[in-house]
């Protein structure tokens, strides 16, 4: 015990560098002056101690400074006017800062001294998208889809045309931890991937973490996608919305009390494809499609209880409904998510901040097939209840520690694929997951920051224990050059089992148990961020970041052929466990001036898989691999009412497997109805043609009826290149067929009051 105490004191002295005796803290929230929303990622700098802090996801910061001294406190965040104030420090100071937003057409000008903020935001392995800054980018459907915007960034592969599938750095789509205001969401798709469940008007920002992932996150192998909802305007009531090709949406937000201590945001969206399809079916006497629709409802409220405590409620409920009916058969599938969280932010002292969260998350799916002969109904689902607490303690001007605990009660309802047998009974699997993490952020010396931590997990159904060390070092080599290295280890205890190569609502979530071991991933990455002077325009801002990574994965599950039993004891015959390996190089260039914003994202990557019983045990490329992938997006905003944006994508063709020959078995002779068995030979040795397209969006903004209206015209794939939506081998013709979408113009209107 004495040894631990002495060790603790020694660590405290090293980290504080002896400053604790004469130090004080300046702490508080940084928020948006116009809306009252708390702001994440703002750089708060204390000039006399040369210490700085970034506001956390709740807008809280704490910086240490010298006692009985005056200092300048400056706060900077891209998109806001910089703030600076001289304060005299006699004791710990609560200092909340309101930042003025800069109008979007002038906000990207260079602000002196924002290098740290820019270096942070351009950090390799981390992508931050603020929806407001991306709303002109053309996407199909006539409304901003945040996941499709993410797909234009480095390291993210899409899988299929139009799909919202996210394959990050060689990981499969179930290896992304998607958090909606901290609540894990399992399926982020509407309409089989055409839309994401995130309604853009309700989303404040997205943060995609691909490497250097803090120890507070775990449970997935490849990435963390943090989707932050807007808090709701604290100052005034606002109404906004839009109509697109397929859906209509409405967002209301405003204060709940005159003092602005509480606010709300309510967003709703629904498709109107179903009545159109119904009319089309009636007019053409078709009865094979009767319903196809989705809806979303998002609610967020917050209440400032006192100067130290804030409470939030976030809720999402949405789903899809698909019905297919003819004279004798009916097929109906519904799926959707429910995600709710109550959070309590507490400031206990100038250095100590906690966040207590209660979470409920559910993914539900109902598949019903009725015919004259049989009726099959399956309801695979997953249901999580979680309580977690995490805390941040500022140790010194150069260090802070984060720690947390969480307890998750998972319940999985699993079913046996799509075969009708008597064994298709519900199997309920319960698993209790316990997590603890600790993480230290420490400026070892000036401009070298170490973030190290570990995550400890116990997963109940298989009685698994795991330790995940995480470490990253960021070295500021100059004011415009930083280097970052990171090592991450991950465990994944929840697996999506599907025999489809694309995300589908029919996927089955299954916990680690018995034969189905936890997936394990190790990733090492090295990246550089440079903020060079623009040779053509001294007012322009240029960010360049390059990151290389190497990742190994174990125990990747894959359904062998067809899922016929969900009994955990039988998984050995249903599932293959294999290895994965991926590596690549990601180059991101971002240039901004007063006229346009340009992103150039290039990724070179390999994603490989190895299963003992596939491809004769040899390694093969994953179906979603795109060896080269270049995205160029330009957003012109130099005109008062008009804005034009374009995205050009060119990528290597996806690997595919084509027949190397055919043969027959059991003495059956090939005939006009039987073309034999296919010998595919080695897997994914063929390559589809290069993928490419150009999308253009034109936006016209104008005032009308006291509000701001925007007309959006997007043209997807302007030159109509036949990129494959799906490919399939037609056994009769012996040809590779494809379904593709040519040029797709879409139209949308948005309004804001």
């Amino acid at each position, binding site marked *: 015990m004495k040894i631990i105490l002495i060790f603790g004191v020694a660590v405290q002295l090293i980290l504080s560098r002896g400053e604790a005796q004469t130090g004080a803290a300046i702490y508080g929230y940084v928020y948006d002056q116009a809306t009252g929303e708390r702001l994440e990622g703002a750089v708060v700098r204390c000039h006399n101690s040369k210490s700085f802090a970034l506001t956390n996801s709740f807008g809280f910061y704490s910086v240490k400074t010298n006692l009985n001294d005056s200092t300048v406190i400056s706060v900077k965040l891209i998109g806001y006017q910089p703030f600076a104030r001289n304060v005299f420090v006699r004791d710990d100071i609560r200092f909340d800062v309101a930042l003025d937003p800069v109008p979007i057409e002038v906000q990207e000008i260079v602000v002196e001294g924002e290098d740290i903020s820019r270096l942070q935001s351009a950090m390799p392995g981390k992508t931050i998208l603020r929806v407001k800054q991306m709303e002109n980018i053309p996407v199909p459907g006539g409304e901003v889809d945040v996941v499709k915007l993410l797909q234009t960034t480095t390291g993210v592969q899409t899988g299929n045309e139009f799909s919202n599938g996210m394959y990050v750095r060689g990981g499969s789509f179930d290896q992304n931890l998607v958090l909606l205001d901290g609540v894990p969401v399992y399926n982020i798709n509407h*309409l*089989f991937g055409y839309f994401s469940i995130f309604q853009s008007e309700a989303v404040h920002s997205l943060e995609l973490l691909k490497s250097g992932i803090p120890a507070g996150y775990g449970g997935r192998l490849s990435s963390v996608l943090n989707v932050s909802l807007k808090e709701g305007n604290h100052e005034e009531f606002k109404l906004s919305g839009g109509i697109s090709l397929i859906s209509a949406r409405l967002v209301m937000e405003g204060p709940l009390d005159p003092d602005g201590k509480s606010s709300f945001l309510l967003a709703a969206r629904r498709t109107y*494809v179903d009545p159109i399809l119904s009319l089309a079916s009636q007019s053409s006497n078709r009865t*094979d*499609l009767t319903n*196809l629709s989705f809806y979303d409802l998002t609610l967020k409220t917050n209440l400032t209880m006192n100067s130290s405590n804030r409470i939030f409620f976030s809720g999402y409920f949405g789903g899809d409904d*698909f019905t*297919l009916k003819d004279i004798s058969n009916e097929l109906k*599938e519904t799926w959707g998510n429910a995600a709710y969280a109550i959070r309590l932010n507490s400031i206990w002292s100038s250095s100590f901040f906690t966040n207590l969260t209660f979470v409920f998350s559910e993914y539900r799916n109902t598949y019903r097939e009725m015919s004259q002969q049989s009726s099959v109904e399956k309801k695979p689902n997953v249901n999580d209840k979680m309580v977690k607490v995490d805390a941040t303690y500022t140790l010194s001007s150069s260090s802070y520690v984060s720690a947390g605990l969480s307890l998750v009660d998972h319940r999985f309802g699993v079913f046996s694929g*799509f075969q009708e*047998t*008597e064994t298709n009974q519900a199997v309920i699997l319960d698993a209790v997951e316990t997590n603890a993490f600790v993480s230290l952020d420490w400026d070892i010396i000036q401009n070298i920051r170490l973030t190290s931590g570990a995550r400890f997990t116990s997963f109940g159904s298989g009685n698994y224990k795991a330790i995940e060390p995480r470490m990253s070092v960021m070295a500021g080599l100059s004011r415009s050059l930083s280097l970052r290295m990171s090592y991450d280890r991950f465990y994944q205890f929840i697996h999506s089992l599907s*025999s*489809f190569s*694309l995300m*589908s609502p029919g996927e089955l979530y299954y916990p680690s148990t018995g034969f189905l071991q936890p997936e394990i991933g190790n990733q090492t990455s090295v990246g550089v961020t440079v903020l060079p002077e623009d040779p053509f325009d001294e007012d322009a801002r240029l960010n360049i970041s390059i990151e290389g990574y190497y990742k190994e994965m174990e125990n990747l599950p894959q359904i*062998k*052929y*067809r899922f016929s039993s969900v009994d955990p004891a*039988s998984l050995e*015959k249903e599932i293959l466990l294999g290895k994965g390996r991926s590596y690549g190089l990601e180059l991101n260039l971002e240039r901004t001036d007063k006229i346009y914003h340009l992103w150039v994202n290039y990724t070179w990557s390999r994603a490989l898989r190895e299963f003992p*019983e596939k491809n004769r045990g040899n390694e093969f490329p994953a179906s979603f691999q795109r060896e080269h992938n270049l995205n160029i997006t330009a957003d012109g905003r130099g005109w008062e009412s008009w804005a034009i944006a374009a995205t050009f994508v060119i990528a290597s063709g996806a690997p595919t*497997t*084509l*027949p*190397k*020959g*055919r*043969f*027959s*078995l059991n*003495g059956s*002779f*090939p005939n006009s109805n*039987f073309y034999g*068995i*296919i*010998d*595919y030979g080695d*897997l994914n040795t*063929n390559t*589809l*043609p290069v993928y490419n397209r150009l999308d253009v969006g034109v936006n016209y903004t104008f005032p009308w009826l006291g509000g701001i209206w925007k007309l959006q015209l997007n043209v997807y794939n302007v030159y109509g290149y*036949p990129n*494959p*939506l*799906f490919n*399939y*081998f037609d*056994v009769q*013709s*012996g*040809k*590779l*067929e*494809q*379904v*593709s*979408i*040519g040029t797709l113009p879409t139209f949308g209107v948005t309004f804001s009051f």
Partner: protein
Amino acid sequence: MRKIAAIFLTCFLSFSCQKEFGIDLPEHEWKIVVEGYLTSGDSVLVRVNETRQYENQFSVDDPTRNGGNADVIVNVNGVDYRLQQYSLPPSSTLLYPTIYSLPASQLVVPHQGVLSLKVNYRGKSVISQSTVPLQPKIISFRTLPNKVNSKLFDLEIEAAFPSGLSYYLVQGSTETIKDTASIVMPFLSDIIVVEGNGEKKKIVVQNRGRGIVAIPQSPRRFILTLKRVNKEFYDFDAALRAQLDDLYGNKKLLGREITEIPSNISGGVGIFTAMSVDTLSVFP
């Protein structure tokens, strides 16, 4: 699910277009095809064949392209046996693929041991090997009414199953009083997988309605044949069923990974596998 995707895509994305893809099939990788399902106590029979380029037509008129004139050697517990090519009428689909065997008086599949295969055909050799699984031992069985079709029966089997996973083909038959010469076969199961612990255990095998489905009104006896097969055969059979469903089901392969057929024929494709069998009759 594929149906959903297919209909969704065709209806919802009505502006989409389907087109033939301008990509050539890869060059044909010529391989020897071997099929050998060897049951303990039965004679050895191996079929030899070859793969074809996808675009080429199959023909029964060229026996040299249907596995004919191959040199097929089976090694049983260390002794080589050269199998003889069957002679059948020309231009018969029975020639396809070519059958190689020996009379039962010369060679039968043993109840234990290792079987090896070597096939030389058109200048190329393939090899394979299979171990005869331990013979299953049926303790008892009884018929159960099938819940879907009253004319069918399921089977409850009690046997000593080894520890871990083991694989079986179940064949249930009835023999009638009126016509003792004919045995009808109510069903042959898919390969079933049993997790055992080395002790006796009861399993229920469902009748999927394959084969001759009617139960005779006055059965004289029920006959159960339990074949223990190797995992290699289970994997091969499961993959084959899945691929046939992919290719010849009424839905196209939208978004689904292709199904490759695993093979224990080194350098070729197909299966060479040994099985052991136990049979028990019950008189009602």
